[in-house]
């Protein structure tokens, strides 16, 4: 059997112009990496939006895998921006292979 370890997976939904700030926070938390996924539409308290990169109304999903400690540190670091800029952060436990990287 292959060995797996438990890590945190964190996904953060952010406005396009804010993605750079989120990834900077991930780097600052000492996490080894991140990956950005595109999103095409959404709806929330502020109403609906639909892939309007033209008007800058686009969002992206930033995904990162980290140890529980670093994940907590990242959540802590992002907390003020989360509230002020309406980011959406979700976090859960996953198994990874070659976990020593994270």
């Amino acid at each position: 059997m292959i060995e797996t370890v438990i890590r945190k997976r964190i996904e953060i939904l952010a406005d396009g112009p804010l993605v750079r700030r989120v990834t900077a926070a991930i780097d600052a938390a000492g996490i080894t990496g991140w990956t950005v996924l595109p999103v095409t539409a959404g709806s929330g308290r502020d109403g609906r939006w639909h892939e309007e990169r033209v008007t800058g109304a686009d969002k992206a999903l930033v995904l990162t895998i980290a140890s529980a400690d670093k994940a907590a540190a990242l959540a802590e670091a992002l907390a003020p921006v989360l509230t002020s800029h309406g980011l959406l952060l979700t976090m859960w436990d996953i198994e990874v292979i070659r976990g020593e990287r994270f």
Partner: protein
Amino acid sequence: MDSVALSTFASPVILFFVLGLLAAFARSDLSIPEAIAKGMSLYLMAAIGLKGGVAVAKSGVNAEIGTALLLGLVTSFALPFAVYAALRAFARLDQINAGAVAAHYGSVSVVTFVTANEMLGGGGLPVAGYMVAVLAVMETPAILSGLLLARRGSVDTGQRPGEMLREVFLNASVVLLLGSFAIGFIAGPQRYKDVQPLFESGFKGVLCLFLLDMGLIAARRLMATRALNWRLVALAVLFPLVNGMVGLIAGHLVGLDGGTLAAFAVLCASASYIAVPAAMRLALPQADPGIYLSMSLSVTFPFNILINIGLIAAATRMLG
């Protein structure tokens, strides 16, 4: 009314915009892929930049250009103060949202400018090539005044100032407009010939498809918004009217005339819905995009395209 205004509604460019509005209101699922729309907007900016630069290479650099650039800078910085006052007094908007909206009206809309350029040129009011540079310099000063207003005189954005300044002065459209303007200027009329087929022959057709998409986006946003009330809608019509007249008078006073004057007035009348919203997300996240985008994109933009450009053309003719 004037021939420009009259022929507006039979021009394919405008008709495609109307088609987009109607299709969205009828809830058709017509849509243009985001990457294509982005590609078309880059094309349009490169094309007008080049054309403007080539025109200046032909006409030569003169004092008028410096005057127009300075006037553009000042107007973009100053307009938000009046807009802000109106938003506070008449629409009773809070300070932050009023500042954010004001920044949009001080800045400019590239597509409104491009459309005006085509309509004015076609109606016997050709626009000087250097107006592309004026367009580019008017994009960003309003962001500073908007932030000053929203933050009671402080532009501290809680972010590294470098990031904010880069966002403002090196944002994609400013770089592409000024960059291709410079390329057109350096290459000159002779070398421009090689790339003319793509950038000039295809221009109006691409503008049609781009305005189709803008019509869809503007109408869909209007239907989805919960943020507008009648006072905001009224102001979103009033601002382009008043700012356009302000632009016409200011431009006339410094000596602009004909299509160039009209184009300057259109710049004043237009509101940003690309560069400024992106900057506001970063610097004023508490402001509600539902308000500023709906006003600038769903009310002011169609009003300018369908009516106000024609009015400004008519007023220009009366002046000259």
